[in-house]
Protein backbone atom coordinates (compact mmCIF):
# COMPACT_ATOMS: atom_id res chain seq x y z
CA UNK A 1 0.00 0.00 0.00
CA UNK A 2 1.25 3.51 -0.82
CA UNK A 3 2.13 5.86 2.06
CA UNK A 4 -0.54 8.55 2.55
CA UNK A 5 1.64 11.40 1.19
CA UNK A 6 2.31 9.52 -2.04
CA UNK A 7 -1.41 8.94 -2.48
CA UNK A 8 -2.12 12.68 -2.08
CA UNK A 9 0.72 13.84 -4.31
CA UNK A 10 1.41 11.03 -6.78
CA UNK A 11 4.50 11.22 -8.98
CA UNK A 12 3.65 12.01 -12.60
CA UNK A 13 6.92 11.33 -14.37
CA UNK A 14 10.07 9.49 -13.35
CA UNK A 15 11.02 6.02 -12.14
CA UNK A 16 8.28 5.84 -9.48
CA UNK A 17 5.49 7.10 -11.76
CA UNK A 18 2.93 5.11 -13.68
CA UNK A 19 3.19 7.26 -16.80
CA UNK A 20 5.65 6.70 -19.62
CA UNK A 21 6.66 9.53 -21.96
CA UNK A 22 3.59 9.07 -24.18
CA UNK A 23 1.40 9.02 -21.09
CA UNK A 24 2.92 12.36 -20.07
CA UNK A 25 2.31 13.73 -23.59
CA UNK A 26 -1.34 12.69 -23.33
CA UNK A 27 -1.76 14.18 -19.86
CA UNK A 28 -0.19 17.53 -20.80
CA UNK A 29 -2.09 17.74 -24.11
CA UNK A 30 -5.36 17.04 -22.31
CA UNK A 31 -4.57 19.57 -19.59
CA UNK A 32 -3.66 22.26 -22.16
CA UNK A 33 -6.95 21.62 -23.94
CA UNK A 34 -8.99 21.79 -20.72
CA UNK A 35 -7.24 24.98 -19.59
CA UNK A 36 -8.17 26.52 -22.92
CA UNK A 37 -11.79 25.43 -22.50
CA UNK A 38 -12.06 26.60 -18.90
CA UNK A 39 -9.99 29.79 -18.91
CA UNK A 40 -9.84 30.71 -22.61
CA UNK A 41 -6.03 30.66 -22.52
CA UNK A 42 -3.83 28.76 -24.98
CA UNK A 43 -0.92 27.73 -22.78
CA UNK A 44 2.03 25.52 -23.79
CA UNK A 45 2.99 23.54 -20.70
CA UNK A 46 6.24 22.10 -22.10
CA UNK A 47 7.72 25.57 -22.51
CA UNK A 48 11.34 26.72 -22.25
CA UNK A 49 10.44 28.06 -18.83
CA UNK A 50 9.39 24.57 -17.69
CA UNK A 51 12.21 22.65 -19.34
CA UNK A 52 14.98 24.91 -17.99
CA UNK A 53 14.03 24.43 -14.34
CA UNK A 54 16.38 22.34 -12.21
CA UNK A 55 13.34 20.56 -10.71
CA UNK A 56 10.79 19.54 -13.32
CA UNK A 57 7.30 20.97 -12.80
CA UNK A 58 6.01 17.68 -14.19
CA UNK A 59 7.46 15.51 -11.40
CA UNK A 60 4.29 15.22 -9.32
CA UNK A 61 0.74 16.48 -9.05
CA UNK A 62 1.55 19.33 -6.62
CA UNK A 63 4.38 20.72 -8.77
CA UNK A 64 2.25 20.52 -11.91
CA UNK A 65 -0.65 22.28 -10.16
CA UNK A 66 1.66 25.00 -8.84
CA UNK A 67 3.26 25.52 -12.27
CA UNK A 68 -0.11 25.64 -14.02
CA UNK A 69 -1.41 28.26 -11.56
CA UNK A 70 1.75 30.25 -12.19
CA UNK A 71 1.14 30.18 -15.96
CA UNK A 72 -2.46 31.25 -15.56
CA UNK A 73 -1.61 33.82 -12.88
Amino acid at each position, binding site marked *: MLPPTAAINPPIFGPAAALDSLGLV*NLLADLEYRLG*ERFGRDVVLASEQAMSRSRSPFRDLDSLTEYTMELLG
Partner: protein
Amino acid sequence: MSDPRIIFVTGSSRGIGLALTNHFLQRGDKVYGCSRGAPALNHPAYRHSELNVSDENAVVAMVRSAVRREGKIDALLNNAGIASMNHALLTPLSSASAIFSTNFFGTFLFCREVAKSMVQQKSGRILNFSTVATPLRLEGESIYAASKAAVESFTEVLARELASTGVTVNAIGPTPVPTDLIKHVPAEKMRALLARQAIPRFGTSADVINVAEFFLSPQSDFVTGQILYLGGVNR
Protein backbone atom coordinates in the same frame (compact mmCIF):
# COMPACT_ATOMS: atom_id res chain seq x y z
CA MET B 1 -22.44 9.83 -45.57
CA SER B 2 -19.34 9.99 -43.38
CA ASP B 3 -18.21 13.18 -41.61
CA PRO B 4 -16.00 15.48 -43.67
CA ARG B 5 -12.29 15.16 -43.01
CA ILE B 6 -10.73 18.07 -41.11
CA ILE B 7 -7.52 18.91 -42.95
CA PHE B 8 -4.84 21.50 -42.19
CA VAL B 9 -2.86 22.86 -45.15
CA THR B 10 -0.10 25.37 -44.48
CA GLY B 11 0.87 27.77 -47.24
CA SER B 12 -2.63 27.42 -48.70
CA SER B 13 -2.77 30.67 -50.68
CA ARG B 14 -0.52 29.77 -53.58
CA GLY B 15 0.95 27.02 -55.72
CA ILE B 16 0.72 23.44 -54.49
CA GLY B 17 -0.95 24.46 -51.21
CA LEU B 18 -3.78 26.20 -53.04
CA ALA B 19 -4.20 23.24 -55.42
CA LEU B 20 -4.35 20.81 -52.46
CA THR B 21 -6.87 23.04 -50.69
CA ASN B 22 -9.12 23.23 -53.77
CA HIS B 23 -8.87 19.47 -54.20
CA PHE B 24 -9.93 18.73 -50.61
CA LEU B 25 -12.78 21.25 -50.74
CA GLN B 26 -14.06 19.65 -53.95
CA ARG B 27 -14.05 16.28 -52.19
CA GLY B 28 -16.22 17.70 -49.40
CA ASP B 29 -13.50 18.04 -46.74
CA LYS B 30 -13.15 20.99 -44.37
CA VAL B 31 -9.84 22.82 -44.76
CA TYR B 32 -8.03 25.04 -42.28
CA GLY B 33 -5.41 26.96 -44.22
CA CYS B 34 -2.87 29.61 -43.42
CA SER B 35 -0.45 31.93 -45.12
CA ARG B 36 1.27 35.22 -44.40
CA GLY B 37 -1.29 37.07 -46.50
CA ALA B 38 -4.99 37.14 -47.21
CA PRO B 39 -6.86 34.01 -48.33
CA ALA B 40 -6.89 33.21 -52.05
CA LEU B 41 -10.32 31.65 -51.95
CA ASN B 42 -13.69 32.02 -50.34
CA HIS B 43 -15.52 28.78 -49.56
CA PRO B 44 -17.92 27.87 -46.74
CA ALA B 45 -15.77 24.87 -45.73
CA TYR B 46 -12.51 26.85 -45.73
CA ARG B 47 -11.13 28.81 -42.77
CA HIS B 48 -8.05 30.94 -43.18
CA SER B 49 -5.52 32.20 -40.65
CA GLU B 50 -3.12 34.93 -41.58
CA LEU B 51 0.08 34.00 -39.77
CA ASN B 52 3.76 33.24 -39.95
CA VAL B 53 4.20 29.47 -39.49
CA SER B 54 7.16 30.02 -37.17
CA ASP B 55 5.13 32.21 -34.78
CA GLU B 56 4.51 29.82 -31.90
CA ASN B 57 1.62 31.73 -30.30
CA ALA B 58 -0.20 32.12 -33.62
CA VAL B 59 0.20 28.42 -34.51
CA VAL B 60 -0.97 27.29 -31.05
CA ALA B 61 -4.02 29.58 -31.24
CA MET B 62 -4.96 28.40 -34.75
CA VAL B 63 -4.70 24.69 -33.92
CA ARG B 64 -6.45 24.88 -30.55
CA SER B 65 -9.38 26.90 -31.88
CA ALA B 66 -9.85 24.35 -34.68
CA VAL B 67 -9.78 21.47 -32.18
CA ARG B 68 -12.33 23.26 -29.99
CA ARG B 69 -14.59 23.81 -33.00
CA GLU B 70 -14.22 20.44 -34.75
CA GLY B 71 -13.21 18.08 -31.94
CA LYS B 72 -10.54 16.46 -34.15
CA ILE B 73 -7.98 16.99 -36.90
CA ASP B 74 -7.66 14.21 -39.46
CA ALA B 75 -4.66 15.39 -41.45
CA LEU B 76 -1.92 17.98 -41.54
CA LEU B 77 -0.06 18.90 -44.73
CA ASN B 78 2.99 21.02 -43.92
CA ASN B 79 3.31 22.57 -47.35
CA ALA B 80 4.48 26.10 -46.47
CA GLY B 81 8.01 26.63 -47.68
CA ILE B 82 10.41 29.21 -49.03
CA ALA B 83 13.52 28.86 -51.16
CA SER B 84 16.43 31.07 -52.00
CA MET B 85 18.94 30.06 -54.65
CA ASN B 86 22.39 31.28 -53.78
CA HIS B 87 25.96 30.06 -53.35
CA ALA B 88 26.54 29.06 -49.73
CA LEU B 89 29.43 31.53 -49.44
CA LEU B 90 27.20 34.38 -50.57
CA THR B 91 24.28 33.60 -48.27
CA PRO B 92 23.54 36.05 -45.46
CA LEU B 93 22.72 34.53 -42.08
CA SER B 94 19.36 36.31 -42.18
CA SER B 95 18.40 34.38 -45.37
CA ALA B 96 19.47 31.05 -43.87
CA SER B 97 17.57 31.82 -40.70
CA ALA B 98 14.39 32.81 -42.58
CA ILE B 99 14.50 29.59 -44.64
CA PHE B 100 14.93 27.40 -41.55
CA SER B 101 12.21 29.34 -39.69
CA THR B 102 9.58 28.66 -42.33
CA ASN B 103 10.68 25.26 -43.65
CA PHE B 104 11.78 23.53 -40.48
CA PHE B 105 10.51 25.40 -37.41
CA GLY B 106 7.11 25.96 -39.04
CA THR B 107 6.86 22.24 -39.80
CA PHE B 108 7.95 21.36 -36.27
CA LEU B 109 5.44 23.71 -34.62
CA PHE B 110 2.45 22.49 -36.63
CA CYS B 111 3.47 18.84 -36.11
CA ARG B 112 3.82 19.38 -32.36
CA GLU B 113 0.49 21.12 -31.89
CA VAL B 114 -1.60 19.03 -34.30
CA ALA B 115 -0.10 15.75 -33.06
CA LYS B 116 -1.22 16.57 -29.51
CA SER B 117 -4.79 16.31 -30.76
CA MET B 118 -4.12 13.32 -33.01
CA VAL B 119 -2.48 11.34 -30.18
CA GLN B 120 -5.61 11.77 -28.10
CA GLN B 121 -7.83 10.77 -31.05
CA LYS B 122 -5.50 7.79 -31.64
CA SER B 123 -5.52 8.55 -35.36
CA GLY B 124 -4.22 11.08 -37.85
CA ARG B 125 -2.05 11.63 -40.87
CA ILE B 126 0.85 14.06 -41.06
CA LEU B 127 2.45 14.78 -44.42
CA ASN B 128 5.55 16.95 -44.46
CA PHE B 129 7.11 18.49 -47.54
CA SER B 130 10.69 17.84 -48.61
CA THR B 131 12.18 18.31 -52.08
CA VAL B 132 14.28 16.45 -54.62
CA ALA B 133 16.89 19.19 -54.05
CA THR B 134 17.93 17.30 -50.89
CA PRO B 135 18.79 13.88 -52.40
CA LEU B 136 20.15 15.51 -55.59
CA ARG B 137 22.44 17.72 -53.49
CA LEU B 138 21.82 20.68 -55.75
CA GLU B 139 24.51 23.33 -55.95
CA GLY B 140 23.08 26.74 -55.12
CA GLU B 141 20.39 25.23 -52.91
CA SER B 142 22.52 24.38 -49.88
CA ILE B 143 20.39 26.12 -47.24
CA TYR B 144 17.06 25.11 -48.80
CA ALA B 145 18.23 21.48 -49.16
CA ALA B 146 19.60 21.48 -45.60
CA SER B 147 16.32 22.81 -44.19
CA LYS B 148 14.44 20.03 -45.99
CA ALA B 149 16.99 17.43 -44.84
CA ALA B 150 16.05 18.55 -41.32
CA VAL B 151 12.36 18.05 -42.21
CA GLU B 152 13.14 14.52 -43.48
CA SER B 153 15.06 13.55 -40.37
CA PHE B 154 12.36 15.01 -38.11
CA THR B 155 9.69 13.11 -40.09
CA GLU B 156 11.51 9.79 -39.65
CA VAL B 157 12.03 10.22 -35.90
CA LEU B 158 8.54 11.63 -35.20
CA ALA B 159 7.06 8.68 -37.10
CA ARG B 160 8.73 6.34 -34.60
CA GLU B 161 7.77 8.46 -31.59
CA LEU B 162 4.10 8.34 -32.65
CA ALA B 163 4.09 4.83 -34.09
CA SER B 164 2.07 3.33 -31.25
CA THR B 165 -0.60 6.05 -31.37
CA GLY B 166 -2.23 5.43 -34.75
CA VAL B 167 -0.70 8.62 -36.17
CA THR B 168 1.43 8.27 -39.30
CA VAL B 169 4.10 10.77 -40.34
CA ASN B 170 5.50 10.79 -43.88
CA ALA B 171 7.02 13.22 -46.34
CA ILE B 172 6.77 13.86 -50.04
CA GLY B 173 9.68 15.18 -52.08
CA PRO B 174 8.23 16.89 -55.13
CA THR B 175 10.27 17.68 -58.23
CA PRO B 176 10.12 21.29 -59.35
CA VAL B 177 6.51 22.28 -60.05
CA PRO B 178 6.07 25.53 -62.00
CA THR B 179 5.00 27.78 -59.08
CA ASP B 180 6.17 31.04 -57.52
CA LEU B 181 8.75 29.08 -55.49
CA ILE B 182 10.96 28.49 -58.54
CA LYS B 183 10.10 31.45 -60.75
CA HIS B 184 13.51 33.09 -60.16
CA VAL B 185 15.56 29.96 -60.95
CA PRO B 186 17.35 30.36 -64.32
CA ALA B 187 15.98 28.17 -67.14
CA GLU B 188 19.29 26.37 -67.81
CA LYS B 189 19.59 25.44 -64.11
CA MET B 190 16.07 24.05 -64.24
CA ARG B 191 16.82 22.00 -67.39
CA ALA B 192 19.94 20.54 -65.73
CA LEU B 193 17.94 19.66 -62.64
CA LEU B 194 15.16 17.93 -64.59
CA ALA B 195 17.79 15.93 -66.50
CA ARG B 196 18.87 14.31 -63.23
CA GLN B 197 15.40 12.85 -62.63
CA ALA B 198 14.55 9.39 -63.99
CA ILE B 199 11.47 10.98 -65.57
CA PRO B 200 12.74 14.37 -66.73
CA ARG B 201 9.70 16.61 -66.61
CA PHE B 202 8.22 19.22 -64.31
CA GLY B 203 5.88 17.88 -61.66
CA THR B 204 2.27 18.99 -61.46
CA SER B 205 -0.04 19.70 -58.55
CA ALA B 206 -1.95 16.55 -59.58
CA ASP B 207 1.22 14.47 -59.00
CA VAL B 208 1.45 15.83 -55.45
CA ILE B 209 -2.28 15.41 -54.77
CA ASN B 210 -2.05 11.75 -55.85
CA VAL B 211 0.71 11.01 -53.32
CA ALA B 212 -1.02 13.05 -50.61
CA GLU B 213 -4.22 11.02 -50.98
CA PHE B 214 -2.20 7.81 -50.79
CA PHE B 215 -0.65 8.82 -47.46
CA LEU B 216 -3.98 10.17 -46.12
CA SER B 217 -5.91 7.04 -47.02
CA PRO B 218 -7.22 4.94 -44.08
CA GLN B 219 -5.59 1.93 -45.78
CA SER B 220 -2.14 3.56 -45.36
CA ASP B 221 -2.04 2.97 -41.60
CA PHE B 222 0.99 0.67 -42.02
CA VAL B 223 2.97 3.34 -43.92
CA THR B 224 4.98 5.71 -41.75
CA GLY B 225 8.40 7.36 -41.65
CA GLN B 226 8.66 7.28 -45.45
CA ILE B 227 10.06 9.93 -47.77
CA LEU B 228 8.58 9.57 -51.25
CA TYR B 229 10.31 11.47 -54.07
CA LEU B 230 8.57 12.14 -57.34
CA GLY B 231 10.16 11.78 -60.78
CA GLY B 232 12.18 8.67 -59.95
CA VAL B 233 14.67 10.43 -57.68
CA ASN B 234 16.34 8.41 -54.91
CA ARG B 235 18.45 9.24 -51.92
